[in-house]
């Protein structure tokens, strides 16, 4: 399994990287945990590989006016092990810890994962529930988009040609907020068959705010607005979770039929909601 030949470029700044990526034959390389397997299978054959790992300033994790700012090049391991993320945005740390295995988490980055937008990836469920903001840089400047706008379709995002994800911003959780990510994984690949992220604000069991993010169920991660509305109007978790499947055109593959996936989504939504409620206490 040998990749098609390519030229390897190592920019030392963000503007330099963006300039190199203006070439349509060039592709960004972050952790390589999705791109290199595709290049080995020759599903991808970029003529130029622009390694982002030498660009300074893209791995930092910091707190700024009620938000955590996470550099695109922060690895899954950086995020799962960050004290700041674990304390202030545990849902993101939990999603990171569910990705693949140690070796994959040591290399793979949050920017690479969301730019790749695998329909079964773990971060998208969490970022939907967190109403994250994603900063995208291009030669013309930087813009910020919401997670709901960012994830467009299977392997399709709001990132345009030559653009780069530079930062993911998530809220510092307020007191009384409980979160949980529950994943039914496909044991051979480790990817989600279905994953549900729940984020609830509750006072003595009464839910005042519910955000539910879903991955693996259909072509693209999404927010389950129907479930959220039911929870906020006092439905019990089981009944609310059942609404997750309403109107969804579910994926069907060798691992799970559409019908079984929809069933799993209801079960894992109920699990995530209960766990988030318990954490909100």
């Amino acid at each position, binding site marked *: *399994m*040998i*990749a*098609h*030949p*390519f*030229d*390897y470029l190592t920019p030392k700044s963000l503007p330099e990287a963006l300039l190199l990526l203006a070439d349509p034959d060039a592709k960004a*390389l972050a952790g*390589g*945990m999705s791109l*290199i*397997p595709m*290049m*080995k299978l020759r599903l991808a054959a970029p*003529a130029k*590989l622009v*390694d982002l*790992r030498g660009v300074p300033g893209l791995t930092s994790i910091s707190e700024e006016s009620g938000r955590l700012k996470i550099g695109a090049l922060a690895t899954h*391991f950086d995020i799962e092990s960050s004290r700041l993320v674990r304390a202030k945005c545990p849902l993101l740390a939990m999603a990171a810890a569910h990705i*693949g*295995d*140690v*070796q*994959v988490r*040591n*290399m793979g980055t949050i920017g690479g994962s969301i730019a790749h937008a695998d329909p079964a990836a773990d971060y998208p469920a969490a970022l939907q529930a967190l109403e994250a903001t994603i900063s995208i840089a291009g030669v013309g400047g930087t813009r910020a988009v919401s997670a709901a706008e960012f994830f467009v379709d299977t392997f399709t995002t709001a990132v345009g040609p030559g653009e780069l994800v530079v930062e993911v911003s998530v809220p510092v959780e307020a007191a009384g907020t409980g979160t949980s990510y529950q994943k039914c994984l496909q044991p*051979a*690949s*480790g990817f989600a068959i279905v994953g549900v992220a729940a984020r609830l604000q509750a006072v003595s069991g009464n839910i005042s705010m519910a955000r539910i993010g879903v991955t693996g169920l259909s072509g693209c991660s999404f927010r389950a607005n129907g479930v959220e509305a039911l929870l906020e109007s006092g439905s019990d978790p089981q009944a609310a979770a059942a609404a997750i499947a309403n109107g969804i055109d579910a994926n069907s593959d060798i691992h799970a039929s559409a019908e079984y996936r929809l069933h799993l989504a209801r079960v894992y939504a109920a699990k995530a909601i209960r766990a988030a409620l318990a954490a909100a206490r």
Partner: protein
Amino acid sequence: MMIAIMRRAIAVTINGKRHSNEVEPRLLLIHYLRDVLGLTGPHIGCETSICGACTVLVNGKAIKSCTMFAVQANGADVLTIEGLASDGNLHPIQNAFWEEHGAQCGYCTPGMIMASKQLLDRNASPTEEEIRHGLEGNLCRCTGYQHIVNAVKSAAAKMGA
């Protein structure tokens, strides 16, 4: 399509020794280690990023060397199974795999031991569950894993002592 691709000069410190070579950018780190340098300790099991037989440490982090290009390791410190023993003495993790029968055919063993090193570097006294979680990226088709878990536990106890 024929493209003339420039070879790249890389310098990598492997098991404490500096190596300088000119390589094609598409050369995988595992092929650099095995075919260019003759370090055949890291194995190729699946070549598809799944089995972990090719695991080595790059700057202290366990990675699958079949899923990294050698050029990405330019300037890095790489540790392979060959670099674990010192002065003819096995590393405590190697010893524990020996004593606890953590290897049968041995194919997964170099990767298992490097992943175990990563695990114990980060957590000196892991629980059984933490050991199993830490070795999720390494497949073994012989042992049923229990002896491997025992070996890591035994190594942790010896290294802590």
